[in-house]
């Protein structure tokens, strides 16, 4: 599979297409094909965004009243930024997102290269490998909570058998290990996903190219670095961005594993929104937080577009 944004068509073919598409009706045709999905998505995304934008300026706490109680201007934004957990949630989210994405991509690539050796028996192994990705994040949360359990869980037990010290408060109870434990659970689920996509992309790299590089005396590392990786740059960028964004919204794992604790060491933006919106039902405040997050997210998307996808399309 090549997840390239575009693939140059042969010139002759392109000219033929052009000719076929001259009439105005036909020029509209591709837009008609795209329209249904874009319109549906626009509706589904625009409504919550406007809903949140409007209510972010109102005082609406459902613990106080089922209806908005009044216009408060930017009050909710101030409250969100000065609240007890916003900044620490942002930091935790960034740590979780950057480390999780980097580790998943690197390990995914390593596993993909291993799979590329095409040894007998690799194919069923690859089929089994993808399994964690097919499991619901909330179930992965349960699975790891079960395995992390301080007394009786298999992971602390394995660590103690290997004489690796486990924090007395348990892996999820120590501020130092709690966030890495969440990253680990996420890695378990999504590293195989990265690996399979990279594997498929690497298969698409023609053997002749690698062979040519080898004949030129390039080391395996140099071949990877200068030949194979550039050729799979697009899937790499796609997976990186996808994982970055999904990790940025992490919520299920935190809900099941730590509920933001101990202290605020695993509070993420996603969990904070859950707390404000679906536990405290402070719609106004949650809406303001939503917009702050949407703005942050757009900064990241812009950065991605600028640095990673700049030559695309």
């Amino acid at each position: 599979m090549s997840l390239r944004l575009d693939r140059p068509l042969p010139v002759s073919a392109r000219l033929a297409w052009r000719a076929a598409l001259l009439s105005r009706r036909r020029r509209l045709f591709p837009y008609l094909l795209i329209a249904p999905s874009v319109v549906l998505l626009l509706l589904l995304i625009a409504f919550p965004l406007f809903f949140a934008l409007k209510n972010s300026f109102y005082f609406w706490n459902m613990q106080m009243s089922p209806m908005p109680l009044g216009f408060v201007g930017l009050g909710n934004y101030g409250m969100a930024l000065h609240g007890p957990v916003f900044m620490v949630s942002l930091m935790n989210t960034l740590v979780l997102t950057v480390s999780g994405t980097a580790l998943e991509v690197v390990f995914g690539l390593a596993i993909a290269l291993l799979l590329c050796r095409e040894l007998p028996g690799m194919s069923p192994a690859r089929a089994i490998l993808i399994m964690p990705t097919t499991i619901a994040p909330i179930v992965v949360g349960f699975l790891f909570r079960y395995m992390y359990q301080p007394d009786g869980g298999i992971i602390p037990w394995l660590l103690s058998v290997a004489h690796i010290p486990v924090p007395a408060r348990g892996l999820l109870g120590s501020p130092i290990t709690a966030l890495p434990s969440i990253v680990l659970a996420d890695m378990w689920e999504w590293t195989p996903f990265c690996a399979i996509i990279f594997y498929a992309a690497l298969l698409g790299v023609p053997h002749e190219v690698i062979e040519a590089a080898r004949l030129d005396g390039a080391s395996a590392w140099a071949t990877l670095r200068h030949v194979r990786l550039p050729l799979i740059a697009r899937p790499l960028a796609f997976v990186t961005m996808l994982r970055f964004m999904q990790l940025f919204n992490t919520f299920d794992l935190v809900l099941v594993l730590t509920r933001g604790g101990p202290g605020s060491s695993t509070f993420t933006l996603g969990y904070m929104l859950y707390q404000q919106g679906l536990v405290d039902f402070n719609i106004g405040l949650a809406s303001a937080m939503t917009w702050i997050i949407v703005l942050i997210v757009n900064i990241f998307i812009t950065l991605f577009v600028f640095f990673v996808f700049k030559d695309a399309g």
Partner: protein
Amino acid sequence: MIERISRRSVLKGTGALATAAALAAPRVARAQKKSIRVLLVADPFYYALSGVAAQFTEETGIAVNIESLSYDALNARLVTSFLGGHPDADVISVDNIWLGQYLESKWVKPFNDLIKADKDINFEDFIPGVIYSINEWRGQIGTMPVAPYGMGVMYREDSIAAAGIKVPNDGSWTWDQYFDMVKKLDGQSFSGHKMSGTVVAGQQPAPIVHMYTQLAASMGARWFKHFPEAPWDFTPTIDSKENIAAITLFRDLYKNSPPESVNYNWFDAGMRFAKGDIGMFYWWTPYFYLCRKDGYMSGKTSVVADKMGIVPLPHSSHPQVISIGGWGLGLPANSIAQDEAWTFIKWATSAKTQKAMALYDKYGYQFSDFARRSLYGDPELLKIYPYLPMQLTALETGNGKISRPGVPTYTTLESIYGLNLNKVLTGALSPEECAKQTTQYWINVLKGNFMVPFRRPSYDDTLEATKALITSLA
């Protein structure tokens, strides 16, 4: 004034709705089999109630579909369904801290008129402290108590005896004495275990707040300057010296607990005790029977089952306050089967049904949270649940409105409080810093929500007022 008028008009509205439902009912009954949907939290009473629900259908011909949800999912589902105006259930379980919100938003139907009209409820059999703590808000009865919880101390008899400690069983002990015993028990070897003195529920926000506020209330700390008595003043008072002393003691109790209990929720703490390596701890009354089992609804006996001492809480130099929390059954105002729902609520909270729930044996006897005083003297139940007299005392003298005031914004305040208390356990905050920071954030929240200063009418919410209300309704 405006509020009163609107409430009356809404009452009239729901009354009209009920009349309409009553008018429509016979036709519906003829047309199809009546059925109601019940949405409960997955606490022990859910298992017991579903276990005996077939009797209700047998007696009334009304089919019941009972579903359980986790605490979070239940609140999210209920609030969103009220917001959308679509009924998701005809009977719901309501946590005592949701009650004010649900009643003021007119999401649940107040029961005052229904109770008054029904002579067979025997309303005076309910424990006033329970009605006051979990079912009443501003003079309205919003739910009927199905599973009220108090607090008490559980200890492992044989380990305590081996350590040469005597625990008073009449409540004549102080928190200082309790702490000394915990300290003495901690680190002792007993039957192959290294014992921990006690165990805390340290997970934020709700579990740690549930456990801590019992200690704090008992040591004289209050959340607000003036509540629940009128006039209400929600200026936080949690940086009082009583509260700082209570936070310090709670931290010290944690130091004599298993370190991983910093992350324990309600059940983790209880099951740790059931494993046998905890000397003593205080917790909600359902754990009196839950700790006899080695897992939730596992049906298997735990190692401490026949070695559990259960006694009243210690006190301080302040008047004793015992926390009461728990669940009532409410009737969503948008339910389309109001009559059937009310019939079910009456049935589920009746002495007869509550007793049947207590005798339901599928997982071993796993229900003794009665709101009805008469059941606490029932010889058949006393044989299974011998601690009932002590539990009754706790419920009769308890006050849930002091330990965890179910005021609007409660959950927001709880999440800040729980976070900072948890930070005290991890050592990130000192008790003084915790009190100071929490106060600061609370003031922001309370001011932002127009609770400080409080300009709306207060309600003189006292146990005496509730007792008078019960008499007037019965």
